């Protein structure tokens, strides 16, 4: 399915890419090419920012965020970068946002710069790694456990006849670009079961990581 819009959250990055002149675009392209594809957007951004110290960090953040998303979209659609550039600039031509409706001269420069940036291998690999991580319906963001004492009343007017400890596990996750959460109630026994499952997963991860290390393939794990 072709591109149909410029999402609001990536528009600032796209506008910053439009504003790049030939020199800045080359500088960015060379810097991206010189950075190793690292796990995680923040690390990659940090590596780029450390090399482009004279650029505004917030500009780089916006540009790189948009480039990551665009790279993921190209990879997902399995189309050529040329085809993608055509789709994107066609949408920009129809946009009611004045900063996206650019002149033809600007479009020529923007298309050329964007194609070169989206062709940088370290960026496409880094974005693919990020995309693979999130390539499930829901992906984990954060969690918290709230622990309470639950009293049991025989009669509402008297002291509790008993109590037990109860935990509420809050899982925060991402689904289709949205941040969501759900709650699950656990008892102490359940905590123990979750701990065992997590310990087993960590042991398996350690074993698989040593296989990756022995093979010489770079480990894209963030941890």
């Amino acid at each position, binding site marked *: 399915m*072709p591109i149909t819009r410029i999402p609001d959250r990536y528009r600032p990055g796209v506008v910053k890419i439009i504003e790049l002149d030939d020199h800045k675009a080359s500088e960015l392209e060379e810097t991206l090419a010189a950075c190793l594809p690292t796990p995680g957007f923040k690390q990659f951004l940090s590596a780029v920012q450390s090399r482009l110290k004279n650029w505004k960090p917030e500009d780089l953040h916006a540009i790189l965020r948009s480039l990551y998303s665009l790279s993921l979209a190209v990879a997902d659609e399995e189309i*050529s970068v*040329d085809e993608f550039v*055509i789709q994107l600039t066609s949408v920009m031509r129809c946009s*009611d946002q004045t900063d996206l409706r650019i002149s033809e001269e600007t479009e*020529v420069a923007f298309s050329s710069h964007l194609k070169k940036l989206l062709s940088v291998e370290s960026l496409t690999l880094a974005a693919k790694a990020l995309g693979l991580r999130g390539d499930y319906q829901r992906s984990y963001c954060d969690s918290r456990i709230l622990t309470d004492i639950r009293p049991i009343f025989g009669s509402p007017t008297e002291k509790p006849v008993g109590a037990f400890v109860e935990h509420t596990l809050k899982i925060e996750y991402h689904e289709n670009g949205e941040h969501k959460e759900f709650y699950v109630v656990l008892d102490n026994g359940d905590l123990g079961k979750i701990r065992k499952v997590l310990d087993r997963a960590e042991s398996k991860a350690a074993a698989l990581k040593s296989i990756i290390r022995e093979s010489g393939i770079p480990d894209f794990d963030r941890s």
Partner: protein
Amino acid sequence: MGAYCGDRLIGYREWREPDKERIGCSVSEKRKSDIFEFLVVSEAAREEGAEEIRSRFTLWANVWRNETRNISNVREVIGHYAYRRIIEMGPAVVPYVLRELERFPDLWFYALRKLTNANPVRQEYAGNVRKMREAWLTWAKKNKKI
């Protein structure tokens, strides 16, 4: 709420969601197959002066020539975004493509076929830029395109 999630919230599906607010767009596209055959019916409808067409063509042609000179894969060459923008300019750009072909032989043949629905090149001359160029320039003079 997603602000603290940082890089985890970088997505890509939103580029393809229907835009309910998009109005007044005169561009439409039809594509015949998965990869390459396409017919773009776009801004060719609007009237342009010869000077404007020439200047737009020159802009895109220069980019195309520079960015494809190191490429041998013909599909990449004719799929280049600048080449496609030239085709989108419609039949009005044909004389400029032909003059460019006359001035400097290059792989303009796919564009000319798309724009004119003609193909004066014999199969035995496949890949032979000089012969293909001769065939097109002969066709152009016969059909008073240049």
